[in-house]
């Protein structure tokens, strides 16, 4: 199995000097993590039926706004959360790849629905069996389509993940080149 994104690795004991965070840096990381997790600008890459549940999640009853993730930014340059909602098929795959590459760091990807997570029950000539074959994914939300509560659970999980990642004020590391294995 190939490695997940470098942003994922939070070393418990940092043995390398570059990974070590000082006390002040830890505070900054917590602060930045707090800011980034509560202000997610999503790019809803909506393709199929899960889009209907996405609309329901964004609407008044299962409110996505209270998580700070309400505003969709329809340009990948301005977004930091790529929500791949629905089936991605082989013709759409290069476009998804391009949208992901256009996004600026730090960025996270949510695979919304089973079709995005693993291809769903469309195991045939036309469907990509999960978008993690093309781009690295942070949170998988299963369901066909997932209930809005499940989506909110996924968003909360993502927020925990963002909080736990190391964030630096000035990030001198080159961004992880996505999935070039």
């Amino acid at each position, binding site marked *: 199995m190939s490695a997940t994104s470098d942003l994922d690795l939070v070393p418990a004991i940092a043995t390398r000097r570059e990974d070590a965070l000082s006390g002040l840096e830890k505070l900054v990381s917590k602060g930045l993590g707090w800011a980034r997790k509560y202000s997610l600008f999503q790019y809803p890459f909506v*393709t199929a039926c899960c889009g209907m549940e996405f609309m329901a999640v964004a609407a008044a009853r299962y409110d996505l706004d209270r998580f700070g993730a309400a505003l969709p930014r329809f340009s990948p340059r301005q977004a930091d959360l790529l929500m791949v909602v629905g089936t991605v098929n082989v013709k759409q795959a290069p476009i998804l790849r391009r949208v992901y590459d256009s996004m600026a760091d730090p960025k996270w990807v949510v695979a919304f629905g089973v079709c995005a997570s693993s291809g769903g029950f469309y195991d045939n000539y036309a469907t990509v069996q999960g978008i993690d074959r093309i781009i690295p994914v942070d949170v998988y939300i299963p369901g066909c*389509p997932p209930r809005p509560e499940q989506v909110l659970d996924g968003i909360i999980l993502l927020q925990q993940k963002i909080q736990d990642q190391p964030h630096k004020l000035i990030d001198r590391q080159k961004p992880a080149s996505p999935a070039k294995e």
Partner: protein
Amino acid sequence: MSKDTQTSVPSVPAAASPLDAPFPAKRLLVNLGPSHPAMHGTVRAVVELDGEAVHSMKLDIGFLHRGFEKSCENVTWTQVFPYTDRLNYVSSIMNNVGYALAVEKLAGLQVPERAQYLRVVTSELHRMCDHLTLISAMGLELGAMTVLIYGMEARDLIWDRLTELCGARLTSNYARVGGVSRDVPPGWNEKVLRTLDRAEELRVEIDRLLTRNRIVIDRTRGTGVMSREDAIDYGFTGPCLRASGVPYDVRKASPYLVYDRLDFDVPVGTNGDNFDRYLMRMEEMKQSDRIVRQCFDQMQPGAIAADDSRYVLPPKPEVYGSIEGAMAHFKIIMEGIKVPAGEAYAYVEAANGELGFYAVSDGSGRPYKLGVRAPGWNMLMALPQMMEGKLLADLIPTFDTINMIGGEVEQ
């Protein structure tokens, strides 16, 4: 609102100084790409623009092709139901019912009356959901974002009722060959009536916001016009055809299930423009409401699936109690129901038009071929003609009102 339909740059006499000369104009090729908020689902439109006027438009589809037909050829007849759900995913029960009608036509099965009423009730509820989705999306894209919130609330309420019945909000998988999968829970009828009352309040609110709104009328009246002859030539069906003036509704022309016992009207428009299509859908929601209430009055308790153990799973006491029941259950699950060889075409009035299923059977437990006549195809095919010479901004309401659902268009 003036509509510029010039397709070539007019020649202007040479000016005194180069600074006053007109810019040489060229047509701009804009790609409204597959991942675009206004392209519901994923359609790529390559538009040649002359200023703001669309000179020509080319559509590229296939970005959601999920291999529906090939998948269906590899599963049993009953396992096809979830695949049909995801065709027109905003009104999935109508797809289920259409497919069930095709298989029952091949098999010559009679569906009991209560099952027919249940199919009609759930179909009409999902028709209301489809129209609500369209109107909410149209409101959102024309700038009326509150309409989205009201529409989603009404849709969520109806989905709550359907969740109690089918188990899922969106992809319901409710109909079965020979009937429906389960009966209503106790007290469901009254709950649905109360939900319909509340949905009606929300619909009236949306109506007040949109129907006499200056902006909506300016943007939708006179745009996306399709004449009557062209509409028939392209194969339009459903609200889009009725907006162009042809009173064709499958429920009235060739009634199926129990539609011949129900009293409802079919709205017909005059202009064939976006505003008429929007009005068709608002009016059809009222009629769906009427149909559901009549069904609840007329429905009698009874069997919900045909009593034929070749096609319908026998009830559990028989499966566990008798050899025939266990054998029938085993054969249906493992091999699939054996539909007699032949082909049949069955059609229903889906929210978008005539949804047809062409089923070919070779006598085994799996479909040999299952073709879908998706109503959204024809409207999408006609989109370049509707947009030629019009402003780019008219693309948005036109794309909204033709209700192109990616799942059914790209199967």
